[in-house]
């Protein structure tokens, strides 16, 4: 072993307690960083999944331009056969067609303007959590049933309950007058007041006849089993719709651009906290190495007298920090990865999470997402900052004078 490396290693253990305190701070911060970053990545994945699975889906097939200009006329043909074709190609039931329109909805007492969404009763529960949030009643009995499910706030505003009749008045795709009477079969509580107040669902078959849509609809929602499978599904779907030039496939990032922005904002604030932790560790290293250099001033003076140049002495100090940081990185990242791995298997929840999740038909546990990035990103930054923190003590050696250094007690 190189003598500098040997000296550095032995120097570390001249003050075992001090070294272990510093290494301990690194281990703790690395463990915490690995766990927090893995949990953060896992929670983003969960946040994306939960948001998309609640209604939007991981991707949608639409008429080109519909996303920017959601008019009833911007629909496309043969939506149900195309949805069926996608289900077969992707070998999944997580594909459902939808139509979207607006109508005035009236009960005996009151009227409100609503967004009416036509859904495939057999497949909509596979792409949206809304059907699982019914607090009263049931989902549709068939694709052509003259039934409606509404939000709890709307039910209260309209002063209706299960079994009540509502009148829908709007304009059809061809500009004709659209009118129908539907039976309230379900009342949901989505957790979002806006949705509960202003959205209702009816079966797609009935939607097409009510709004003179023919065989048309507005989007096909596709959910992936996992976020990591989105890319694979995207290429398959693109292949299926390749012959229909009027259609486009939009992924979740295009459908919900705010989601990515929210994640970035959260990531920024989390990294601000991590930065504080890393700076504290760096100061601990700075303190240790500065003390170590100061108390060995005489020793450094001797080495200089023997002809050792300051750059080699500086390298010795940096090597000591490197060894200490490597220990902290290996043990901290290892323990952090073990903890994150264990929790990625059994999940992690906090008090009240289960009740909250049950209320919104969402998973009741978070699962840290373990990856090379989540394991090594934080510890590597701690490692680099620790090395940077030891530059100042190392630089002090360049200003040492051998005679006065050797006089130091």
């Amino acid at each position, binding site marked *: 072993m190189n003598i500098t490396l040997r000296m550095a290693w032995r120097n570390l253990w001249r003050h075992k307690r001090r070294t272990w305190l510093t290494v301990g701070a690194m281990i703790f911060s690395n463990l915490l960083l690995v766990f927090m970053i893995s949990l953060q990545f896992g929670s983003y994945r969960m946040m994306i999944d939960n948001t998309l699975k609640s209604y939007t889906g991981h991707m949608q097939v639409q008429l080109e331009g519909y996303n920017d200009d959601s008019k009833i006329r911007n629909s496309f043909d043969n939506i149900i056969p195309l949805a069926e074709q996608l289900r077969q190609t992707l070998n999944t039931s997580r594909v459902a067609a939808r139509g979207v329109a607006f109508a005035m909805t009236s009960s005996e007492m009151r009227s409100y303007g609503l967004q009416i969404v036509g859904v495939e009763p057999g497949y909509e529960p596979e792409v949206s959590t809304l059907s699982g949030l019914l607090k009263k009643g049931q989902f549709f009995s068939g694709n052509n049933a003259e039934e409606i499910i509404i939000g709890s706030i709307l039910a209260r505003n309209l002063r209706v309950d299960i079994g009540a009749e509502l009148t829908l008045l709007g304009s059809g795709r061809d500009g004709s007058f659209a009118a129908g009477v539907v039976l309230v079969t379900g009342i949901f509580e989505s957790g979002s007041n806006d949705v509960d107040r202003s959205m209702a669902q009816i079966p797609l078959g009935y939607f097409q006849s009510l709004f003179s849509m023919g065989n048309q609809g507005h989007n096909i929602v596709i959910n992936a089993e996992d976020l990591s499978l989105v890319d694979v599904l995207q290429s398959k779907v693109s292949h299926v719709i390749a012959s229909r030039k009027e259609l486009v496939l939009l992924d979740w990032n295009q459908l919900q651009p705010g989601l990515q922005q929210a994640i970035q904002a959260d990531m920024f604030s989390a990294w601000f906290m991590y930065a504080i932790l890393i700076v504290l560790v760096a100061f601990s290293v700075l303190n240790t190495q500065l003390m170590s250099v100061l108390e060995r001033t005489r*020793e450094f003076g001797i080495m200089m007298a*023997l002809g050792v140049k300051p750059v080699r002495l500086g390298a010795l100090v940096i090597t000591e920090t490197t060894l200490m940081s490597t220990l902290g990185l290996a043990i901290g990242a290892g323990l952090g990865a073990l903890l994150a791995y264990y929790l990625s298997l059994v999940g992690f929840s906090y008090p009240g999470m289960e009740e909250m999740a049950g209320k919104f038909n969402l998973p009741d546990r978070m699962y840290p997402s373990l990856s090379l990035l989540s394991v090594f990103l934080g510890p590597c930054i701690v490692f680099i900052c620790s090395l940077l923190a030891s530059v100042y003590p190392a630089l002090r050696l360049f200003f040492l004078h051998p005679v006065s250094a050797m006089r130091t007690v």
Partner: protein
Amino acid sequence: MTSIVCKDLCKTFQQGDEVITGLDNVSITIEKGDFVCLSGPSGSGKTTLLNAMGGLDTPDSGEITIGRVRIDKLGKAALADIRLHNIGFVFQAYNLIPVLTARENVEFVMQVSGLDAEERSKRSYKILREVGLEGMENRRPAHLSGGQQQRVAVARAIVSQPTLVLADEPTANLDSVTSSQLMDLFVELNQHHNITFIIATHDLRVMKYAKRLIKMEDGKIISDEKQ
């Protein structure tokens, strides 16, 4: 052949408001292979002169030439190279590196010089045998007696085959028997390897070994005698 020439060396130190004279117009020439003792009371300037000749300190004025190199004008890096390749130091307090074994202490300077591991190992074992430390190569300084530590320091000082060894009170912490052994070793190295020795000392027994005795007082040379 001339080994060291010091000409009109002056050095002062500031201690609070007081200016202390370390060297006061010191001029001296030391031949290669000489065995010189610098003697004098504390504060007479022995160590200051030794430090200046070893390139550890620079004089305020005057010239120091070792061989053909004027070292008083050299920068830190060049002085470090001179010390590494040409000068061996033996200090009063041994000054070994505590985390290294006796052999590693001796090898350290050679590694800094860039010698390969095999050569380093060969030389360090040989030199430690020469100074009577065979079998103690793997002991750390804390597990060696004062005399043994000083022998390691001597081995370290001469292993790179310097032309000059500067020793500052090398026997100050040793008993009389160990002091005699150390001085015998110095004499042997001086005679067999033609290394120039300059020893700063108070010790009258050490002075007896000198070929040349220089006495100093208040930063000046007051006598310079060949013995």
